[in-house]
């Protein structure tokens, strides 16, 4: 279960200057690119990505931290973008589904999702994939029960769950098999 990860504060910079509540300039580094925009400090990372930066890959399924559709990474850790303030991500690296493929080449997990039909409507998929890649990196891929447990923060109402597990297994097994390229 992915507990929402709150980015740690900037290292001991004593008291941060007070900003807001009116719109302020926020600079985010997303998928390696810097973006500066005006938004109120109350704006969530999810709404900043989707409505300010037109990066709509991360989805809003609940805005309450219950579905996982908004899962992105902050400094490589999965977070729920709907429960994270955009302004709190300044100085941290945000990674979204749009940043996963290398140009035209899909990430191994993206390819495995297609191959295993690990989605139907595709709405939960960006969040599932961001969780799945992180899970593999974290090493929570020992067996199906472990995968299922660590993927249970991402609801798929189309219920592609067995196929999601199969996709994760496929990548895990291929990465262990030296005859396949690295994931």
């Amino acid at each position: 279960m992915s507990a929402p990860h709150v980015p740690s504060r900037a290292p001991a910079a004593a008291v941060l200057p007070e900003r807001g509540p009116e719109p302020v300039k926020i600079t985010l580094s997303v998928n390696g690119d810097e973006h500066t925009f005006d938004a109120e400090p109350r704006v969530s990372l999810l709404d900043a990505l989707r409505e300010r930066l037109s990066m709509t890959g991360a989805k809003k399924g609940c805005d309450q931290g219950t579905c996982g559709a908004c899962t992105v990474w902050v400094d490589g850790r999965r977070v729920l973008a709907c429960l994270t303030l955009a302004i709190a991500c300044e100085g941290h690296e945000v990674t979204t589904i749009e940043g996963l493929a290398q140009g035209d080449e899909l990430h191994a997990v993206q390819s495995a999702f297609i191959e295993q039909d690990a989605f139907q409507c595709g709405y939960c998929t960006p969040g599932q994939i961001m969780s799945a890649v992180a899970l593999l990196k974290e090493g929570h891929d020992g067996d199906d029960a472990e995968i299922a447990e660590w993927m249970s923060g991402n609801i798929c109402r189309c219920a592609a769950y067995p196929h999601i597990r199969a996709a994760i297994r496929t990548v895990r097994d291929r990465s262990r098999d030296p005859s396949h390229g690295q994931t």
Partner: protein
Amino acid sequence: MTTALAIGQPTDRVDGRHKVTGGAHYSGDMLPGTTAYAVLVGARAASGRITGIDTTEALQADGVLAILTHENLPKAAAQPPLIPSLAGMPAPGQTFFPFQDDVVHYAGQPVALVVADTLERAQHAGALLRIAYAETPSVTTLDQAREEAYEPEAIFGGFVPGRNTRGDIEAGLARADVRIDATYTFAANHHNPIEPSATTAAWDGDQLTLYDATQGVAATQLTVAALLGLTPSKVHVISHYVGGSFGCKAMIWAHPALAALAARHVQRPVKLALTREQMFTSVGHREEQEQRITLGADKDGRLTALRHHKLSPTSPFDDWAEPSLGVASQIYACPHYEGVYRLVRANTMTPTFMRAPGEASGMYALETAMDDLAHQLGIDPIDLRLRNYTDMDPNTGNPWSSTGLKECYRRGAERFGWHRRNPEPRSHRDGRRLLGYGMATAGYPVYGPNNPQRARARLYADGTAVVQAATPDFGTGVATVMTQVTADALGLPLDRCRFEGGDTTLPTIAAAVGSSGAGMISAAVHTAATNLRNQLVAQAIGDAQSPLHGADPATVTVRDGRMMLRDAPETGEGYAELLHRNVLPDVEATGAWSPSPESAHYGMMTFGAQFAEVAVDPDLGLARVRRMVGAFAPGRVLNAKTARSQLMGGMLWGLGQALLEANAMDPHRGRWVASSLGEYLVPVNADAPEVDIELIEVADKVVNPLGVKGVGEVGQVGAAAAIANAIHHATGRRIRKLPITIEDLL
């Protein structure tokens, strides 16, 4: 010499790349120009009147563009009747449109629409509204209104009569050697697709464009046009990707029209997305219900009588009940039958279709009663069902257009290992856990559209083809399977064909509801592509320079982009050659399909068999489904991969229905108790066991040209019963309510 057909192959989804990269754009992802944001404010009272709306503070908040209420929103031009969207007409989910007056009929009814320049500001202003109500007592549960139940003339938008009988029920019961008489209760359910409904509306003069999450773009177009008094020709609806529906986007609720009204008011594009909480009060639900079944059978287990009554709450506006008695009245031979719907009026919105609407609940009741009967008579549950097998629709006497049911029982039982089951309850264990094995029959009707379904096929001079039909993809894989259908009809490789849908500028397709999508859309696409092929062949035959000049069209076949004589394949030419020679940039044909008149003389149903293994912890009352097996006979399978995924999704929905999904009304406040995914439990990954599916193809020449019967819903039918029967087998306890929860098993 034969090339493998594209149809039936487990082809990867053609839109897979978009879906895994974030490149699939859903309605809420659209930002046309300087979009403003609308939020709906729902009534906190369940019944009464609005006595005042103080907008002062909200209007002063930063960024607020408008606050619309019944006092200033333009009135609806007309209220279309409630007709299921498959009929192709305007399809409001209920015959009530909010904002017409100050009356509150149900909690959550939209009472204000706040528009601001950002979402946060709209939400904040919404919280600053002061709305006063004069509340009157509400009725929201069956128990509060049981005494006032009435028998409606018809339910389900007038399509299903309130009462259905055959034979003489009393005589049938009198003839029975054994009887089962039991009442089953069902909690209310909510669809909760992960994409909440959303509409983005933009006006260009008097032309309206809507990006709407819908199962049918024409349904949105016609409904909004009727409500706003516009001609449909001025309403353009686009819906390429829809993040799941399960029925809650099958009818058109108030929000698309409200988004359009708000956009007109503020003269900017407006995005209106429902919140997760609003998904419980804005798009219909599966109603709470009670079903009573009285079964009579002879000592060999043959049914002599079936009485099936249902009682459920509906809205103040419409006589709606999901047709729970339908498939349960057709699945077995039984000469004497009585089915009656009864309703009570309640302060809720009109319930609506939810995956396997009625079939899933009705077959839960019937299939657990059948399990009781098998147990009581000492007959194997599969054997009992075979004894009651019918090769015709008992309601009409018409033969099934195709079945495959017996094969489903046989293959499903084999895959599941049914023969290893000791019929005695509590006879299988794994450590301290009790194991149970249960099964049930599945069936789902094949519905046909009322109007012609259309598609257009175009071949370009480079030998690539595009086929178009207005349908959106809400997860079914329609773009993929229609590409496959096109490839075969035109004799083209799959990668030279492309499907375009989700737009009212394309040929009209009715809302893909009732598992009808694959059948009716493939029929339209197949017809259009076949017409195009015939047109190309005719042109070659009439062309003095073609090697096929003067050939009999019946002897011409197409393959790999080439037309040729079947018996002399070296004689022929490519489509591209024909087009180049005749200086044609492209060739186009349309196709339309309606169900054949002869289909009225058949019963049409998709059949299946469900099996489940459940482990129950007797100390904790915890039931876990360990595996599910389903065998289904959906006619022809267009894509084995996507069909399996849909059936798997349906079966896991059955798991949710059996063990998790429930909502209830707080009888005092008249509001749903659960209003988030934290409270309304749906299956998560750790709940979902491996699901094993067998597809049994059966030829069907009646339903549609390709013999496709649909897989969207039948996977859910019987799944909850198989689980409940497995729980009975594990524990010896018969639970007659859904969901079955820990308290029931302690």
